[in-house]
């Protein structure tokens, strides 16, 4: 369903006045009567969402500040708060290497997935050729094969090729498994963009790639952000292939490193250090995403379809 084929303002920065217009629009949306119901509902919704998302994370912070026998209790506030756990994870060289590896692998995989995925998505969304359905089905099916069944064959293959225990050895399978989702999201976003926009740009003398870069990409920005975030999410969390295809701090990623955390005794599950590591991982991630998201949203409103 086409969104609308109205006036286009590609690349023309209309940021000034944008804020005023949004405010006005919001006021219209609020409506003349009952203008306290909506904000109230929204506030309640915001509060509920915050509690829902944050409580278990608060619990992690709570546990990360406990050590020793406090971990055996379920106090909602740490009785003897201590930063020992944080201290010990940063002293752990494996963890810091793992952080570095995870960041590299995630970033590279995401960028590659977006590039390769965009090309494929563009072909699927815009161009005509036979057997499109088959290709879509094939791409989709690859991502659904249970990873456990291919872990051992992949280990053997990687060892033979020589990329076992390397970062590139992780990037390649991650890219493979991230592509289907990225391609699907990007394809559906590209499809939503009215063809007339590109055609208008082409009529104005732009080359094919210029049209793609200046018209399609900015409009598909939400799709790119989404595909990028979801790829990053998958790569960051992935454990099975990471632990199968790596064996040293050269290539360990964060999930592997956390799996190697130990308590002070053999059977002890190191809740304290695991929680501290989780907190440490989450905060920069969230910060990075906020920054990233803001810039894309800004770029998007600058070139968005208004009508």
């Amino acid at each position, binding site marked *: 369903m086409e969104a609308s084929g109205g006036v286009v303002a590609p690349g023309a920065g209309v940021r000034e006045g944008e804020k005023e217009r949004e405010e006005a629009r919001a006021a219209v949306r609020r409506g003349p009567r009952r203008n306290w119901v909506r904000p109230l509902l929204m506030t309640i919704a915001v509060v509920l969402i915050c509690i829902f998302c944050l409580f278990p994370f608060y619990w992690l912070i709570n546990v990360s500040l406990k050590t*020793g*026998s406090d*971990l*055996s*209790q379920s106090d909602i506030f740490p009785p003897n708060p201590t930063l020992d756990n944080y201290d010990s994870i940063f002293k752990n060289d*494996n963890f810091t290497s793992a952080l570095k590896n995870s960041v590299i692998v995630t970033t590279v995989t995401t960028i590659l997935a977006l590039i390769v995925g965009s090309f494929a998505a563009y072909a699927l969304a815009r161009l005509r*050729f*036979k*057997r499109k359905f088959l290709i879509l089905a094939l791409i989709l099916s690859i991502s659904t094969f249970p990873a456990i069944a291919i*872990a*051992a*064959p992949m*280990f*053997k293959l990687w*060892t033979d090729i020589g990329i076992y225990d390397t970062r590139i050895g992780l990037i390649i399978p991650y890219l493979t498994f991230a592509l289907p989702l990225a391609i699907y999201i990007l394809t559906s976003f590209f499809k939503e963009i009215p063809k007339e926009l590109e055609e208008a740009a082409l009529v104005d003398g732009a080359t094919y790639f210029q049209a793609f870069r200046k018209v399609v990409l900015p409009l598909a920005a939400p799709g790119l952000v989404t595909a990028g975030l979801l790829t990053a999410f998958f790569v960051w969390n992935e454990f099975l292939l990471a*632990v*199968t295809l790596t*064996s*040293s701090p050269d290539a360990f990623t964060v999930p*592997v490193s956390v*799996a*190697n*955390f*130990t*308590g*002070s*005794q*053999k*059977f*002890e*599950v190191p809740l304290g250090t695991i929680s501290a590591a989780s907190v440490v991982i989450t905060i920069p991630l969230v910060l990075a995403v906020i920054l990233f998201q803001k810039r894309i949203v800004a770029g998007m409103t600058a070139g968005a379809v208004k009508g």
Partner: protein
Amino acid sequence: MMKTPRLVAALVATAMLAIAGCGDDDDGGGAPEAEKATQAKASGNVTWCIGKDTTGAFGTVIDAFNKANPDANVKLLELPEDAGEQRRLQVQRLEAKSPECDVLGTDVIWTAEYAAQGWLLDVSDWISKNGDKFIPSTVDTTEYEGKNWAIPFNSNAGFIYYRTDEVDKAPETWEDLYKEAQSGNGVVYQGFRYEGLTVNFLELVYSAGGSVLSEDGKEATADSQEVKDALTFMADGIKDGAAPKAVTTYKEEESRRAFESGNATFMRNWPYAYALGKDSKIADNFDIATFPGFAGKEGAGVLGGYNLAISAYSKNPEGSLAFAEFATDPKQQALMATEASLPPTVTETYDDPAVKKAMPFAEELRTAIDQAQPRPVSPVYPQISEAIYNNVYAALQGDMSADEAASKMNEEIQKALETF
């Protein structure tokens, strides 16, 4: 035009399938004569693949070895904490015939499996020369089909922990224990549906003089009175309130936490919980004891622990053997006992005053290990264990009667023994 890339991909895939298909039917049947590791020479590179050690005691042993043997270089390859993951990652390398791991830290229950697949070097000669220094039961865990396939490294045997402020002394029979638990605060153990439940269950069965597998490992013996009695006893324990219902969600840590927070009078757990308990709020109010008897027989535990095995694909078997030998030196064993609370397998270590200080229950521990029995020895042990814990769990939850559970367990074990 579109056809070409896909066609190429299809051809490549087919070709690879064909190649993969060719490589598999190696031996017609029967285990090949396993190679022996007899010479110990401390030189060359050795990679030790074991689950990460807690306190860095493994690192200390490695450093000591490397220093004493400048020609040798031992490196630690850490595997995840979870025993299942350790095994999977070792198995994946062994199946791929990878020389990456020279010395493997193997759980005592993996010996038969690994040996049956020809993945380990025969160390019988070394054991026959040096085996006397070990507690005999630990050497039993290295045996399969009459040969020794690993060197005992550390051991483990369970204990009954009890609150000294709630009961005067440790009960002498399981029946008494459950009775006191019922009138007291309950008994907690590992009732989650996993390997730990097999251990807890077998402790009762062995205490009753029963078994689940015949000596020769060829026949299931779970459909017996002892097994049924143990099942009834455990299930009734939950029904009558001696053990809380929550016990079916407990692994080692949960039961430890329940005991430490004062929610239980008795606990069955491994020795590791002792040191942690001494750091908790019940520090002055608990003690440990070896297992009580059941059905009029002597108490018996189940052996845990890790052995050191040498991979059949190792490029340095001599260095590996030298390192394994070093790690079982009484001095290194004492180090691991004092620094990491890992129960030694070498008998004389228990007399070391430093060890006695770090583990005040050292004497009981040695006795417990001596009296403990191994779990069923079989290359299909994982399936046997699954048959056990699935059915015991069903009985504990009240989904099956003890008789049904015993006969289903027997049936499944028998089926496992007939696996191709």
